[in-house]
């Protein structure tokens, strides 16, 4: 396996159908996989076209990987219950993401989220 995931857990979700309403640029991401990224938030960017959460997470060798995790746009995220205050630098997080096909530390936030040990339950949204 090209990338050591360390405390990052790999789950393969072959049962997931490819979402009809995937967003633009989804061709670069592996919708059949889910990776759980655990680490420390370094920056939270409330921007278009996608809200970004940057997380430092160590791999098996103890090397820090600088993850850039994208959500949807601010309006859709607001519908999910997010706000400009959902994350802050220093938060310890665990997030299920769809990883990039080319194994770069970039992903789409698409599942369970924990912030400082507590699950952040997202509201239903259209996307």
């Amino acid at each position: 396996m090209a990338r050591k995931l360390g405390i990052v857990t790999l789950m393969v979700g072959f049962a997931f159908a490819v979402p009809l309403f995937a967003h633009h640029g989804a061709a670069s991401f592996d919708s059949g996989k889910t990776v759980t990224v655990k680490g420390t938030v370094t920056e939270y960017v409330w921007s278009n076209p996608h809200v970004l959460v940057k997380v430092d997470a160590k791999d098996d060798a103890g090397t820090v990987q600088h993850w850039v995790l994208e959500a949807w746009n601010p309006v859709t995220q607001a519908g999910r219950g997010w706000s400009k205050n959902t994350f802050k630098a220093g938060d310890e997080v665990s997030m299920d993401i769809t990883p990039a096909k080319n194994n770069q530390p970039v992903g789409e936030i698409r599942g369970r989220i924990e912030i400082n040990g507590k699950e952040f339950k997202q509201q239903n949204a259209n996307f």
Partner: protein
Amino acid sequence: MSKRLVASIVAVMAAGISASLLHAQDEKWNNIPPTRATYRDKKPDGVAPRRNLTGIWDTAQALGTSGAPEHPALLPGGRGSQGGQEDEAGIAKPLPYTPAGLAALKKNKPSGPGVRQVDSVLTNDPAGKCDPLGFPYMFSWEFRTINMVQTPKQMIMLSPFYGNYRVIWTDGRKPPADPDPRYNGYSVGRWDDDYTFVVETTGMLAKTWLDHAGRPHSDKLVVDETFHRISLDTIEYTQKITDPVMYTEPWIATNKLPMHLLPDDFDIPELLCSPSEFAEYNNQVATPVLRDSSKK
């Protein structure tokens, strides 16, 4: 009880009341529309007013992103949303392309889901640069909540997406004969009956796309829309594409899409496209995930 303790209690109570008031105030802003599931079993309700579309209307994001909703760029069963094809061979409801239309289609590289989706940084989608989308692209993708304002001579449609607006003239004027092209074209509207408002739009810029799947159009494009108010709380929206340069026959892009009436104090959140933020997104996300850097 000491004065200091009383003062502390009063301060805490005041802070609580202020927080409640602020929360109540905030609920008046950046309202989020109901989800599609909310409308699943809901029947159209109330008596439609005569010749009136004024209001805040929401589609519950029912259009999706795989192109014109009646002809999504997907294989049967919804497969093929992650690209790989040069053309749209095999899609469930193919479009009647002319040879020129097919050639134009292949030049457009969509990042939107569909059988031809490319990596985000390889797209030439106007949306990939925050370029104006124009009409009808604005009404085939991210068509969410719009504010419709009716005046004696105009129907004005205000969209939070791109801060776009359309003016549809209802004063009886004819479409321009040989117009300089515009992103949103030139729209004229009339009431077919007391509950059916029809719009004809011409003069759109040929470089714009029809939808997020990269369907092309020429400067001969005519878009016919029908806003059928079937009840107080529901409009059915239909859009027809006619472009003899790109398509051998007219086709329906959107068919009776329900638009739901929202409260008149609903505050629509803005959804703008910022070129500098998009560039930063491309820098931090779209470029690093490009599957084959030699293609860049």
